[in-house]
């Protein structure tokens, strides 16, 4: 499995077996998600479950437990689910579209762009007029970063060029965000850069869910609509054209979909990296290299990965809660190194 291997559907394999394997895998992931969701809602620090408080004798205690469940745990679990799904899905889609196994929203600079957009509208009072302006800012930043990526990387970028472009955009986004934060009126802003660069789901509310969820859902739908197109593109641009797929339309679907979902995610939770990189690679041994088959499992897997990371930071942080991006980076960065190492070993190399 080298990085140069084309991701083409192998029509020799019996489809029904593949379909059934995919179905079982997705079902297993869905079950895992249900368990993680349950734990996110009810499990507290020190292995303590919320049931005892919810059924408490004292009315006040029960009410407080209910507030914790609905206003604190539920939004957090929902955001972990949806953001993880967005990141996993857009990672898989970008890898399919760019035919590059290292593509993911964080690495190609989309998350940084979204963070910049969110920071500018939030700290300078623009989002105070209407709450919706916050996710809109994030989405504008994400879309801008993607357009810049395609402009820099050209029509058919090779692996190296794409990653370089991504690194440049991520660096630019990060630097401009830091600049904006330093100019912000509030003195807390400069400290909050850690939130925007690493991401966190701590103390999120249903308000954040309401702001981000519609856009994430729309983005996911748009990306999913590009599924068959991604399959066709994997055969080559001209082949796809002859099959009746417009490359421009597929690109637009993926760009807008990723921009919406990642932009909205980052605007409420900061830039969380590596989910979109790791998950598609983990599911590929089971699912195979067909892009359309990989989209749903990547979404489910991304949600599972982020929920697990969130459980870890919620239950096992020492005093001050770790930022969730730390956990995903600790997993993701070595994984990236492993991918690069494998590529070098197999001789494919980065041109």
């Amino acid at each position, binding site marked *: 499995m080298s990085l140069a291997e084309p991701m083409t559907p192998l029509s020799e394999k019996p489809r029904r077996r593949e379909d059934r394997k995919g179905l079982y895998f997705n079902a297993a992931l869905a079950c895992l998600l249900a368990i993680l969701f349950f734990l996110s809602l009810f499990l*507290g620090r020190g292995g303590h479950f919320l049931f005892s408080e919810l059924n408490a004798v004292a009315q*006040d205690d029960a009410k*407080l437990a209910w*507030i*914790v469940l609905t*206003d*604190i*745990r539920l939004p957090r679990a929902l955001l972990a689910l949806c953001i993880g799904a967005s990141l996993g899905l857009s990672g898989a889609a970008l890898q399919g579209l760019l035919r590059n196994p290292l593509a993911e929203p964080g690495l190609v600079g989309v998350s940084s762009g979204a963070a910049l957009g969110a920071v500018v509208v*939030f*700290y*300078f*009072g623009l*989002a*105070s007029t209407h709450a919706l302006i916050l996710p809109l800012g994030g989405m504008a930043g994400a879309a801008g970063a993607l357009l810049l990526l395609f402009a820099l990387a050209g029509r058919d970028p090779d692996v190296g060029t794409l990653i370089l472009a991504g690194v440049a955009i991520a660096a630019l986004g990060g630097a401009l965000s830091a600049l904006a934060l330093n100019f*912000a*009126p*509030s*003195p*807390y*802003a400069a400290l*909050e850069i850690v*939130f925007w660069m690493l991401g966190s789901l*701590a*103390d999120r*509310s*249903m*308000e954040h869910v309401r702001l981000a969820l519609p856009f994430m859902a729309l983005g996911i739908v748009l990306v999913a609509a590009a599924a068959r197109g991604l399959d066709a593109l994997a055969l080559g641009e001209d082949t796809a054209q002859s099959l009746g797929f417009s490359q421009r339309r597929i690109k637009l679907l993926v760009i807008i979909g990723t921009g919406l979902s990642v932009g909205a995610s980052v605007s409420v939770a900061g830039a969380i990296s590596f989910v979109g990189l790791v998950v598609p690679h983990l599911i590929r041994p089971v699912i195979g290299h067909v892009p359309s088959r990989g989209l749903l499992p990547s979404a489910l897997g991304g949600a599972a990965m982020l929920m697990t990371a969130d459980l870890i930071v919620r239950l096992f942080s020492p*005093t*001050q*809660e770790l930022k969730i991006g730390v956990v995903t980076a600790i997993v993701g960065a070595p994984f990236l190194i492993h991918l690069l190492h494998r590529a070098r070993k197999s001789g494919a190399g980065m041109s």
Partner: protein
Amino acid sequence: MNGKAEKHSKLHRFARLICFFCLAVFFFSLCQSAQATPRIVSTNLCTDQLGLMLAPEKLLSVTWMAADKEESPLWEKAAKIPVNYGTAEEILSLKPDLVLAGNYTTRFTVDLLQHQKIPVYEMRPPDSLKGVGDNILKVAEILGVEEKGRQTVLLLEKAMADLAPQDGRRPKALVYRAGGFTSGGAGLVDDLIAQVGLHNMMADKSRDWGRYISMEELIYLHPDVIILETYRAHDPSLANALLEHPAFKSVLGRTVVVSIRSPDVTCGTPAMIEAAKAMAAARNQVLQRK
């Protein structure tokens, strides 16, 4: 020849004597003027506050924060005084006789000033009511207004004594700041809480300046009184946005909330008394409910 030389040397000696006398008078008068108006520069917000409170006319310069409404309770008094940004360059160019600084002021700046033989008085931010009194007396001494300093301390002590509780009941209180930070068992706010007859819940958990608590933890603690310490509440930040969290608002609905401004309780000025009065009123409200 000899006579002329002798006359010359006598003249020279006399001239030298006159010169020496003039110079002596000149230097003596210089010293007098230096003693008359010592040039005092304040480079720390807390020393600014105390200086403005006791003798603003004696301060050559205060920090830029002293004139900022959001940072300084005594900002009006700082309006006419030139500001500095605490850099060694600025301070040296003012040619001060004494510099008031904080013990957290940049070491480099302090060392540079001391190297230039300028005395620096480093004040610790007060961590108790007694500390407030000590700081006031010390700064008053430096500024040469000892009597005013003593009077101010007496007024503060009387005001606090008036707020002391009549009985032994101690409703549970908790300080909550932007970003989810609380105040532990140390610090001026903790002392104020104890003085007005409340019990700081976080003092049981930590003897230090305070730490972050998550919203969930806050809900489980459910104090009787939440002391909301605000700082620059109008400028948007994630830290301030946390105070808009629906869960927090529902908790606020069940407790007595007293809002105080961070600058009022940082440096130990009369503004601190207003904050303490608000806390005492909250205590009464809780006890009336029960």
